[in-house]
């Protein structure tokens, strides 16, 4: 057991560090919680950042060479991630494309699709999004109602997607549709690549409870998709989607990363605020800080175990769901301890004289308002517990009445 790099890894890390220093002038740098003034400018800067990183060989590290990747290890990919964070370079703008859409295109796409999309995806010449969830099908994804109907060489798509991260800046998306409502719900689905600039596609930002918009609604009105943009066979869409979801598991919180503000941030805030509290409130605040720290550390080190398993060649299994579950709980403890340390300022979204909302208080409040969403987005706590209970602990599933019934005859259409 050790937390050190192997000599190979250390050499790789040094090279990454050199590359990041070399290209520093062409990269966006951003502090956690910091937001750009002009979103359009920021988008361009982020696209440029990814292009520079891709050209330096730091994007698609673990992708195969034939798909434009670096044919490296997952350990190397983790090292790049750590070094980007260390250099304060924000997440790649195309992180969904690289983490989920790309692997799905690789696994189920034609050689023509590989050729057309993958290189541009890696360089963020095209940004991608994932169009799965719908208003009436969140946890129960297979109940989706967006239809695609064959019409000559095209399919005609109608319906609505929601919770689509990055849709507002995306060029392409992978789109799960229902093509055969007479089959049972999982059996009548088909996956496509959709051009987000095609006529009939409308993207509307969805405002969250904290006021910001991280997600979009996407409407499809008679959008035509050529059959050549189908991913996998008609009716095989569920199987294709499982590839995406398997890859999502790695991307969403399974790795032990802090899902909210870091315990280090909390430590800094506590260092500032604690000495000003009366003695008995210090006792209670220290309990809150300590509990949050223990939970965050437990989650962080559990993430290291999962990263170890992956770097030894394992695939992320259902136990990664435990990482999101525990990470969510830890993030809530951190957030609550932090907000309470704000004292009187904690009743404001941004305290008096704190107009920009970017200093301490505003940042903790934004974080607090974001956390109810993380127990839902990317798998609700309840669904994650089912996954762990059934696939890790081997407990029996609940009876399902909807699984084998034709979709259009089922209660799922409600």
């Amino acid at each position, binding site marked *: 057991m050790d937390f050190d790099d192997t000599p190979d890894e250390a050499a790789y890390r040094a090279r990454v560090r050199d590359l990041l220093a070399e290209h520093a002038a062409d990269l966006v740098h951003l502090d956690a919680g910091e937001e750009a003034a002009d979103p359009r400018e920021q988008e361009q800067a982020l696209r440029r950042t990814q292009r520079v990183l891709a050209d330096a060989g730091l994007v698609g590290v673990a992708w195969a060479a034939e798909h434009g990747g670096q044919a490296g290890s997952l350990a190397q990919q983790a090292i790049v991630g750590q070094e980007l964070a260390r250099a304060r370079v924000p997440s790649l703008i195309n992180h969904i494309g690289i983490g989920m859409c790309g692997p799905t295109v690789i696994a189920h796409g034609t050689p023509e699709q590989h050729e057309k999309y993958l290189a541009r995806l890696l360089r963020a010449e095209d940004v991608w999004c994932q169009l799965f969830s719908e208003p009436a099908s969140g946890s129960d994804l297979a109940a989706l109602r967006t239809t695609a109907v064959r019409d000559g060489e095209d399919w005609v798509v109608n319906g609505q997607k929601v919770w689509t991260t990055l849709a507002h800046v995306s060029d392409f998306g992978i789109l799960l549709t229902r093509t055969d409502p007479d089959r049972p719900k999982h059996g009548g689905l088909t996956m496509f690549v959709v051009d987000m600039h095609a006529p009939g596609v409308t993207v509307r930002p969805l405002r969250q409870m904290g006021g910001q918009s991280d997600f979009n609604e996407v409407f499809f009105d008679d959008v035509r998709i050529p059959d050549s943009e189908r991913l996998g066979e008609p009716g095989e869409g569920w199987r294709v989607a499982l590839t995406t979801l398997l890859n999502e598991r790695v991307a969403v919180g399974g790795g032990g990363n802090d899902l909210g503000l870091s315990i280090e941030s909390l430590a800094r805030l506590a260092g500032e605020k604690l000495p000003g509290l009366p003695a008995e409130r210090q006792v209670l605040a220290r309990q809150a800080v300590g509990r949050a720290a223990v939970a965050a550390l437990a989650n962080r080190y559990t993430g290291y175990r999962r990263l170890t398993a992956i770097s030894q060649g394992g695939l992320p299994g259902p136990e990664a769901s435990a990482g999101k579950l525990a990470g969510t709980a830890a993030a809530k403890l951190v957030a609550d301890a932090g907000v309470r340390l704000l004292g009187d300022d904690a009743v404001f979204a941004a305290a008096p004289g704190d107009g920009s909302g970017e200093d301490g208080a505003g940042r903790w409040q934004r974080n607090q*308002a974001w956390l109810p969403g993380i127990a839902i987005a990317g798998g609700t706590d309840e669904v994650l517990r089912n996954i762990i209970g059934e696939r890790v602990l081997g407990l029996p599933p609940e009876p399902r009445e909807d699984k084998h019934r034709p979709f259009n005859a089922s*209660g799922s259409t409600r």
Partner: protein
Amino acid sequence: MNFDLDQDQLDAAAGAKQFFGGQASPAQARAALEDGPVAPGRKALADIGFTGITVAESAGGAGGSLLDLAVVAEQAGAVLAGPSLVTAARAAVLLADQPELAAALADGSRAFCVVDGSTPALDAVGADTFLALVDGALVVGGGDVVTGRPMDATRGLGVVTLTDPQVLVPDAARLWARARDVALVALAAEDLGTAGKAVEVGVAYAKERHAFGRAIGSYQAVKHSLVDAWVGVEQLRSLVWWAAWAADAAPDELPLAAAAAKAFAAETLERAAETCIQVHGGIGFTWEHDAHLYWRRAKVDRLLLGDAAEHTDVVAGLVLAGALA
């Protein structure tokens, strides 16, 4: 033993529900976050007589009990109404021997705010008459109000600097303490209404929304979390009624009951609001849905007039001092 509302109180609750249902709503609380007016506003509350429920009849009020006010406050909480009846309840105690000011509270000709030092004060925004305890004396005056970006705009929170304070009651420590306890009860009553509404909204959605072929409320994870939230609301109701009853009928019990109600209210409302969001899934954390407005109220109210830890400590102190013996 008759631990229930009487017919007059049931009628008052029904009337208040109708009034608030027409005059305020989560939608207006949402609009207030973007500089819309707080609803129903001071004038409407005075006109219907709610700011004077506990003001003496001789001063133009209804001369009612705190329990009478609490059943109305619950309805106010259910629709996130503002300004708060907490301010009315608290000011009415402080102004018991000030007929002119009490009349101005009842008829709405003055906009009151009660200030605890430099702590952000409830209903400071738009207030013109500020009450505070300065060196043991109850004072009244004007005030400069500094606000932040509100988390819950209906609370009208601001940091107040008193201007031109005049002494009303020189030796007012006990009066102030009673008024504060009364305020705790009114706040817990509003939270009761908000928490009850959050559970109601969650239950309704759980009946209607289907996943995997059946209503999500049939799943134990959803069902049991709503049940726990509902049980909390009903337990809170008992503490609120007890505390409100005690204020007039058993003043010795008020400090314990008020602290217990406030401590329990903070946690009950927080759980109810978070459950409401979680049950709704994705739409539960959108701006357009009401769930976050209950949540905002929860996150603010839990800190007003002392948090749960403070009141839990008060309860412990009273219990240790033999309050239950």
